[in-house]
């Protein structure tokens, strides 16, 4: 403990509390709560480097801006579920081994359990809650219902997000391509054939075929 304290005294030359930092330029921002971010400035030979133990960030989730102050250790999954009550995104393994936490980051599917929320600052995030529009389900959601694409349903939001990313890029995927695109999602109920069928049906309905 002693050692750490000493080190700090040597390198942390200034300790700032900045309020509302970084949220000024955001048009549609949800009104930020005035909670302080906590930032030190580290003096190095190459100038000052910000070191955060809390940071104010803005997440653009399903086209809506959320400003909040978070700790560096908070994962995007944690923030979605525990802070923003967006519990459609599921937590299972917490280590990149199941896919239940899949969301889109700037359009690409990623595991939110292995993503620090701080690093999603100012990025565009899409979760399963953002798919339905005007009271109508997304065609992929609809196809999962019609084709029994789920049993217990716990893996479903993750599978749907991977499918959305696939059909954005590939309007008419072969079964092999569907399998590859969904290879980062596990279904403990083993409902794979129905899931592939649902995606295939959704791709048809989205093409108007």
């Amino acid at each position, binding site marked *: 403990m002693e050692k750490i304290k000493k080190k700090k005294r040597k390198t942390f030359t200034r300790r700032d509390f900045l309020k509302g930092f970084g949220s000024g330029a955001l048009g549609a921002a949800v009104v930020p709560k005035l909670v302080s971010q906590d930032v030190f400035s580290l003096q190095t030979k190459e100038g000052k480097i910000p*070191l955060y*133990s809390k940071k104010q960030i803005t997440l653009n989730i399903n086209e809506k801006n959320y400003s909040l102050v978070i700790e560096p250790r908070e994962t995007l999954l944690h923030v979605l579920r525990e802070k923003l009550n967006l519990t459609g995104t599921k937590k299972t393994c917490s280590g990149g081994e199941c896919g239940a936490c899949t969301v889109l980051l700037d359009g690409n599917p990623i595991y939110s359990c292995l993503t620090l929320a*701080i*690093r999603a600052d100012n990025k565009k995030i899409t979760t399963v809650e953002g798919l339905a529009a005007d009271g109508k389900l997304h065609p992929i959601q609809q196809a999962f219902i019609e084709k029994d694409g789920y049993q217990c349903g716990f893996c479903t939001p993750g599978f749907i997000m991977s499918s959305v990313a696939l059909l954005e890029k590939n309007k008419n995927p072969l079964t092999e391509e569907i399998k590859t695109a969904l290879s980062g999602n596990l279904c403990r109920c083993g409902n794979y054939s129905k899931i592939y069928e649902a995606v295939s049906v959704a791709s048809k309905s989205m093409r108007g075929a």
Partner: protein
Amino acid sequence: MKNFKIAQPKTIDQITSLLSEKRDKYYLMAGGTDLLGEIKDEIIEPEAVVDLTSIPNLSYIKKEKDGVRIGALTTVAELAKNLMIKQEYPGLHEAANGIATPQLRNMATVGGNLCQRPRCWYYRDPQVKCRKKGGSRCFAFRGKNKYHAIFGGGLCYIVHPSDLAPVLFALDAEIFISSSKGDKSIPLTDFFILPKVTVSKENILEPDEVLKEVKIPAPKRGEKSTYYKLMERGAWDFALVSVAVKANVSGDVFKDTKIVLGGVAPAPWRLKKAENMIEGKKITENLLRQATKEALKDARPLKENEYKKELIETIVYRAALSLV
């Protein structure tokens, strides 16, 4: 997860300067797919994470006259979908495409893939202090060692988990490293080290050094490459064994062949004996099997991983014949 701070520097020099002051307690994070796992599992307890992604312009694939330059923050997915890479370095494309899952490929970076830590289950268990973590024993040596090394072991028997490493090895890649003392470039073959040299780490990087770029020379005329990987399941798995083969192929004769294995040693492992035995000869399944068998005489399997030898014999000939 224990708390930590996060530093968000703006230049590489700031990072190396910071790391040279902070050394052990500050950890570099690229995609974070490995580092965050290590933090969650309490294998490491950083005081702060240094965010490499706050540095601009480290993600690129640039084709130049004498080769291609790949920035450390290029994601594995970007590498996998690059058409020029697919055409000129098919082995690299195949390796990138076979890594983990689409989600992980979108997150994982090329630099992080080469610098990732081992997957040995004793290493990943926070309760176990094995030799790699400063303890006095390697628990895999007499313990559960199905997935461990058959070459290059001694003190520690990890296999290097990277799929990009063997193929970049075969392609004669070079890497550029920045440090607080300046920049340098070394062949990738000098990057990885065996536990006999240093048991606590897998490559030569010092705590204040950052891998900045990978450079691969332009393919020679007739140069072909491929990557074969065997896993216990169809996706989402590390290699049981893998092989990168590169050669100048004319008809069914191979020249300047490189055969580099993954999943068998603490670093990518070249089968030099086999390379020599097939050099300039007409390639057949028989010749390849013979050459591989000869090279495998140097293997030192542990109790549970003798099976890797048979797998290697099979993938080497399959991979090589696919280039004919």
